């Protein structure tokens, strides 16, 4: 028994039995500016009290086998909230359905625990009056990566050099009025308005907001992994240019028995798909997405994800898209994954007042784990400097 305890301690210390705790603060006071400047009230999950809860919520990333605790703190001054771990097949207690598990009242904490199972793409969302709270913005993507390599879809799966996540939804501004958001509490029927969305979102952005984002960069003859998820109430029909050789490889956190190359893929509410794109042509184009009304299957909205296929993602393409830093918020460690081609020279973490709190100077090509458990709780900036001297900065939060 003592040997087992020693072994478990050894494994825990060396990160084999990684434990990860994430704080999500449920808020009812979010604001979102839509493509045409319209401001709406939202609900959402934030990582600190001073933060506007954005749509979607933060992407949560864990490793397969991690022992995960999500601490949901409800600071809503209103309705109870929960977190449903969509697709993770957790037990009833952690399922986030209020009348079957528990709900979390204003100023209470709710703890959701699970062992990260199959690598894949999942969702989290509130399950209290879910028709309203999900539309209000209480959702995000949850990703589980395989333990052996971050550049694998799953153990023995597809290798990829870079990846992008797309979480799609819609907005009907009529649902974002106090009349509907501030619904009665308790076991009563809740009135919802007819659903007529007019804004169609990709990662919370639409129209010119989406167009102003950087193009997604693909390297010629190289695998890029796309994680696609739908948390809206319409279907998302992706139309891929055939030159991308888009291969559907997984769905709902499981590999498909047979991968298939498809030019169109329709993703329905709650579904997730994994797609590998690999083009042998230099190209500048867009992936088209039609938002289909589920009652008529007619397209009522269209958005485009712009991309460019380049010969080689050189050092000049060292953009924020080529650096992943997770988990954020973090506790004991931070992982950095460099998917650009240029080495990184230096990593520094500063407090918000500019004081250097941590420095890492060794070069690396792909990924590194920083042991940062000693940092005091709070917000930080991480500055990553590459060989040529250019920098990337990210804001992080330590619990």
């Amino acid at each position, binding site marked *: 028994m003592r040997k087992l305890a020693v072994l478990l301690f050894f494994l825990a210390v060396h990160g084999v039995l990684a434990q990860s705790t994430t704080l999500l603060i449920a808020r009812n006071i979010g604001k979102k500016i839509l493509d045409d400047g319209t401001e709406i009230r939202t609900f959402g999950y934030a990582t600190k009290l001073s933060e506007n809860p954005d749509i979607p919520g933060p992407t949560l990333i864990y490793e397969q086998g991690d022992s995960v605790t999500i601490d949901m703190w409800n600071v809503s001054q209103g309705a109870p909230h929960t977190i449903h771990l969509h697709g993770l097949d957790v037990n009833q207690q952690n399922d986030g*359905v209020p009348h*079957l598990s528990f709900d979390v009242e204003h100023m209470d904490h709710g703890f959701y625990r699970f062992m990260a199972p199959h690598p894949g793409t999942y969702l989290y969302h509130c399950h209290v*009056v879910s028709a309203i709270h999900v539309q209000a913005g209480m959702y995000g993507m949850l990703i589980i990566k395989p333990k052996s390599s971050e550049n694998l879809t799953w153990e023995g799966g597809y290798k990829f050099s870079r990846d992008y996540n797309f979480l799609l939804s819609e907005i009907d501004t009529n649902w974002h009025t106090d009349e509907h958001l501030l619904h009665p509490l308790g076991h009563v029927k809740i009135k919802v308005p*007819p659903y007529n969305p007019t804004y169609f979102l990709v990662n919370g952005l639409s129209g010119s907001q989406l167009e102003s984002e950087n193009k997604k960069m693909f390297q010629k003859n190289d695998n890029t992994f796309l994680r696609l998820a739908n948390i809206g109430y319409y279907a998302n029909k992706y139309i891929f240019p055939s030159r991308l050789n888009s291969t559907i490889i997984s*769905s709902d956190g499981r590999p498909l*028995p047979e991968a298939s190359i498809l030019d169109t893929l329709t993703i329905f509410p709650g579904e997730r798909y994994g797609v590998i794109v690999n083009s042998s042509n230099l190209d500048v184009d867009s992936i088209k997405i039609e938002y289909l009304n589920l009652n008529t299957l*007619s397209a009522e909205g269209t958005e485009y994800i712009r991309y460019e296929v380049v010969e080689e993602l050189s050092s000049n393409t060292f953009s924020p898209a080529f650096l992943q830093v997770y988990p954020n918020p973090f506790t004991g460690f931070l992982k950095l994954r460099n998917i650009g081609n240029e080495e990184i020279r230096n990593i520094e973490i500063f407090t918000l007042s500019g004081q250097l709190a941590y420095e890492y100077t060794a070069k690396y090509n792909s990924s590194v784990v920083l042991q940062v458990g000693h940092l005091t709780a709070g917000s930080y900036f991480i500055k990553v400097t590459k060989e040529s001297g250019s920098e990337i900065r990210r804001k992080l939060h330590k619990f």
Partner: protein
Amino acid sequence: MKLLFFNLILLLTSVCVSGQTDTLSIFINAGQHQLVDSATIPAKAFNLTPEFKLDGQLFKFTKGQEVIFKIINTDTIGHTIEIQEYGFSTFIDSGKLVITPITFSSNGLFQMCSKTNYPQEKYLGLSSLIAVESNWEKSFYWNIKEYQSSFNTAIQNGDAIDFKIYKPDYFLINGRSNPEIANDTLAKIRGKVGDTITLHILNSGNSVHSLHFHGYHFEILASSRTPKVVGWVKDTYAVYGGERVSLQIVPDKPGEYPIHDHNLVATTANNYYPNGMFTTMIITE
């Protein structure tokens, strides 16, 4: 008087069994269906008696079974009844009876529906699941559909409807919405850890319903829409109008877990939450 006439037909036909061939009386009935909020709408159904009841009437057979269908039409219009995969098609005039044999030669899920004024009569409820299988244990059956209540009234009144502007307000499993679905033993999944549970679904409506399962992934055993998905393991599956699909669940833990349409508008009834396509499965040790 009319009901007495049809009951007499039922009495006469139900005893007509010749050799190994079974006789099944199927009534085409019209009536008023009561919804979860006590509103009523005009609807139609296949039933085993002359009494109208919209409850997702299931017809179960075994492979190779020969059956004589005695279809009695109590409706005010004639109906062409079809089971497409069996090449079965017969017209029954209003107030008439048709006797016709059918042999169920292969296992699977099939749809029996009215092709009259298609899809209007099917939409009203003349669409039932036919399940041909050898093992009935731990199998559950859902006939899912949705109604736009104003369409039901319009069809009854002979007014035109346009499915291009379809906006349903009620969402049903075997004719019921949450929480009444829990009272339907065909629909309410109950099992034990380690059981092999099969859920057979017919979407007899017009909308696509994206069903999400809490607690467990399922394996897709069959789909009438596309064989491509057979063998996929998922937690959410979108069932198209007219599609039949069989999903297998092997629970690995006890608990009560929801199954619901993840188009969350469909978890409402007449714009009230939570009265739509939502139920739970209960798994014990």
